[in-house]
């Protein structure tokens, strides 16, 4: 879809009046209807709970520290493969028996790993609650890693990697991360490579899950028709047998390299895929919220961002163009992408770079700054549209150490950002320059080396505190 465009003056006046009317309501968003309880089990395991008996179902999400950042250098893909295998047989059940039982009870259980975390999702009808948590317990504490399931999963991942190896989107992204983070786990593909997968052993897989599945970094959220006492009992039963402490490999803080570079990977496709990015701002940085607003104004996903307007709306150069802030545990990024026809690729990159420079130099206008604030205040609660999404957000808030009252405090945190803050942070966020990767047959675009001075040292100061989120 679509749409947007700049407001003509007539429209802008009407809109201003409307915004004022909404302001009061937005100060207490949809979250008002939601009470978050902190539950601590008899065994000391904590979860955040939203009780809602409107529907006979329960959703749960959890995360533990340690994802692909725990993969050995030169052997990427261990965390991803191990995580894919957690529901492929556990305890007394082989893969078919395990999956068959889940399906008979309509229990949805899945695991995934990103760069920093292993995450799990559970959804069950209330009537099958205890069995659902039992299957989760088995998957976490007694995964089988049967040879047949391991080889089947390996073949599936290999098949996907072979497909990715010629996908322009995937090549652009892989090249970006590998260039930005050489000799760092973040530079390795999360899913591994066709070279690394054959070398992953069952011992590698077991070693990973044994090290990361522990109680100390565990964050849990439960949403649905269940009371706090029952949650407490299920928490102990499900997670109580995990080791108290994870054994994580230390990971160095890093800042993205290659700023100022353009890297073109030739591929015979009609549309060039472009990834662009540079350093972001950490989640616990005092400038984070200002950066979040700046990102929204630049290219943050609404139909009225500057990139959307300039690249898509005015010129029709691309179907999608956006960027987002990414806060990892050991690095912070601003990362965006678009895709455009070969003869317009150079122009599109130029426009993106111009818009970034312009926003860095001039900051946002008063009007777009005000609109971005109301958008970001309203969109948060509107995005919480399913039980699993609420649970996932509550886990993220715990990982980000935002506090259980964050949803109530959030509008005030946004309001507290001044236009001066935004202008200062726009410069801080958007001045360092971009690493750009392009895949396709772009006309007139070629690889360039950076002005070397633009790239800071690869490893950040150790004192810099971690933020989190994938």
């Amino acid at each position: 879809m679509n749409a947007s465009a700049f407001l003509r003056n007539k429209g802008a006046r009407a809109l201003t009046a409307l915004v004022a009317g909404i302001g009061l309501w937005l100060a207490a968003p949809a979250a008002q209807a939601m009470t978050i309880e902190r539950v601590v089990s008899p065994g000391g395991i904590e979860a955040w709970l939203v009780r809602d008996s409107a529907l006979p179902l329960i959703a749960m999400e959890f995360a533990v520290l340690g994802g692909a950042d725990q993969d050995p250098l030169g052997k990427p893909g261990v965390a991803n493969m191990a995580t894919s295998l957690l529901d492929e047989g556990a305890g007394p059940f082989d893969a078919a028996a395990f999956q068959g039982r889940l399906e008979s009870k309509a229990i949805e259980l899945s695991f995934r790993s990103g760069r920093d975390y292993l995450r799990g999702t559970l959804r069950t009808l209330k009537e099958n609650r205890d069995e659902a948590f039992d299957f989760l317990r088995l998957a976490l504490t007694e995964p089988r890693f049967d040879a047949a399931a391991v080889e089947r999963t390996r073949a599936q991942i290999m098949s996907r990697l072979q497909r990715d190896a010629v996908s322009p989107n995937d090549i652009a992204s892989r090249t970006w991360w590998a260039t930005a983070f050489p000799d760092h786990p973040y530079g390795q593909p999360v899913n591994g490579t066709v070279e690394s997968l054959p070398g992953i052993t069952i011992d590698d897989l077991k070693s990973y899950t044994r090290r990361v599945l522990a109680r100390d970094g565990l964050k849990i959220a439960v949403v649905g028709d269940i009371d706090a006492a029952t949650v407490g009992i299920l928490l102990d039963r499900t997670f109580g047998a995990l080791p108290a402490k994870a054994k994580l490999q230390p990971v160095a803080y890093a800042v993205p390299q290659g700023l100022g570079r353009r890297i073109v990977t030739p591929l015979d496709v009609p549309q060039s895929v472009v990834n662009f990015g540079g350093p972001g701002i950490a989640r616990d940085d005092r400038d984070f919220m200002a950066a979040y607003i700046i990102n929204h104004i630049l290219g943050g996903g609404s139909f009225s961002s500057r990139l959307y307007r300039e690249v898509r709306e005015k010129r029709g150069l691309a179907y999608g163009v956006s960027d987002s802030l990414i806060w990892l545990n050991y690095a912070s990024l601003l990362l965006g992408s678009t895709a455009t026809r070969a003869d317009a690729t150079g122009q599109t990159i130029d426009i993106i770079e111009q818009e970034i420079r312009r926003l860095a130099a001039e900051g946002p206008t008063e009007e777009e700054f005000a609109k971005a604030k109301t958008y970001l205040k309203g969109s948060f609660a509107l995005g919480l549209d399913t039980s699993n999404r609420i649970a996932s957000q509550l886990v993220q808030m715990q990982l980000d150490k935002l506090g259980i009252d964050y949803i109530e405090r959030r509008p005030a945190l946004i309001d507290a950002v001044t236009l001066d803050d935004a202008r200062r942070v726009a410069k801080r966020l958007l001045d360092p320059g971009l690493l750009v990767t392009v895949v396709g047959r772009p006309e007139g675009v070629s690889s360039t080396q950076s002005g070397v001075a633009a790239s800071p040292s690869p490893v950040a100061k150790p004192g810099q505190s971690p933020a989190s989120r994938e």
Partner: protein
Amino acid sequence: MLKPLTTLAALAIVASALVGAVATAIAGAPQITHFTLSNGLEVVVIPDHRAPVVTHMLWYKVGSADETPGKSGLAHFLEHLMFKGTEKNPSGRFSQVVATIGGQENAFTSADYTGYFQRVPRDKLKAMMEFEADRMTGLELTDDVVRPELNVVLEEQNMRVANNPAARLGEQMDAALYLNHPYGRPVIGWRHEIEQLNREGALEFYRRFYAPNNAILVVAGDVTADEVRTMAEETYGKVPRFAEIKPRLRPQEPAQQAARTVTLADPRVTQPSVSRYYLAPSSLKARPGESEAIDVLAHILGRGSNSRLYQKLVVDKNIAVNAGASYDGTTVDNTRFGVYGTPKPGTTLPQLEQAIDVVIDDLIEHGVTAEELERAKSRMIADSVYANDNQRMMAQWYGASLATGATVDEVRTWPDRIRLVTAEAVRDAARRWLDKQRSVTGYLVKDTRPEEKRS
């Protein structure tokens, strides 16, 4: 909101696993209200009072299959242009208002319908209705906005199709499956025809199909039926009925008599695959209970890792990395039943295709087990409970079902009808519809010719 992307037919496919799935039979299921305004606009209200939020969707009963031959892509192009403004709300003001309150919005086009939706705080519902009613007849277009948007659509075609060998094969398979019906055309259009679309053609299409008596309003969320009725009458109710809405009579398929095979070779194919579409009845065109039986058949044959195709080909015989089946009955005319497989290295596509046929033939000959049937049915019925957790999904099911000819009651009783499906009905459905004479098989293979010879 993630990305400002239109959804195209993808939405219809996503919803397909759960087509029409909604349950009053199940505790906690909402009381759906359905009524029609005097100008012919149908209204469906789905209460969900968990948060002070509403999902507002307007569905038009027009899609790519209603386009004039030679103008493929017009329904989807118009969907894009609907965001360009009206006299009253010029130049994207609607989207600006949605964005300013942090709302979500998007639109989608399938072969049979075009939909527009917003998710907003409940006190903004009336404003959404005013905007949406206004652009039902008030669209204004200039070449200055139409031309760049056509380029956007061409980039969308590049992204979804031209850059993606599997999607290109899918288009060729549809074209081969449908000998006569417009479902053979891509929803996004053929590129050479998209390039010729223009302002006049879009406006002509708009005036022909966008009218209250060719639309369905679905509101899900924290609102009562009475509130919706009042607001709808004050907004949409003012739009006059349009007399000329014709029944959707598309050219139908003749008796199909020959199995077809198409092969797409591309140097970028590193993982070959085989898939097949069988012509299969939509819920609307099927005999009573038949569409439900086909749905259960698709589940047992190929949805998930417990399915026949996965268990036989991936687990037991170890010749495929993946295999499955699909069916989406939410269409006006006859749809497709799909099977697919991705071979392991060392297995050829003909070998895998033959192995798929063995699984299908076995099911046709011996039917399904009681355990398989129960597992599939309980999983599918549970999906209709889970659906209640997703306001947008609920609105989508009702909208898509009604836009393709189902009634509210048919949607509501879907779980009951799934419960009634027998093993015999599943076997009959397989025997009747998994007939290769009414199918196309597609091979996706690597093109090994040297690159310079292709250009």
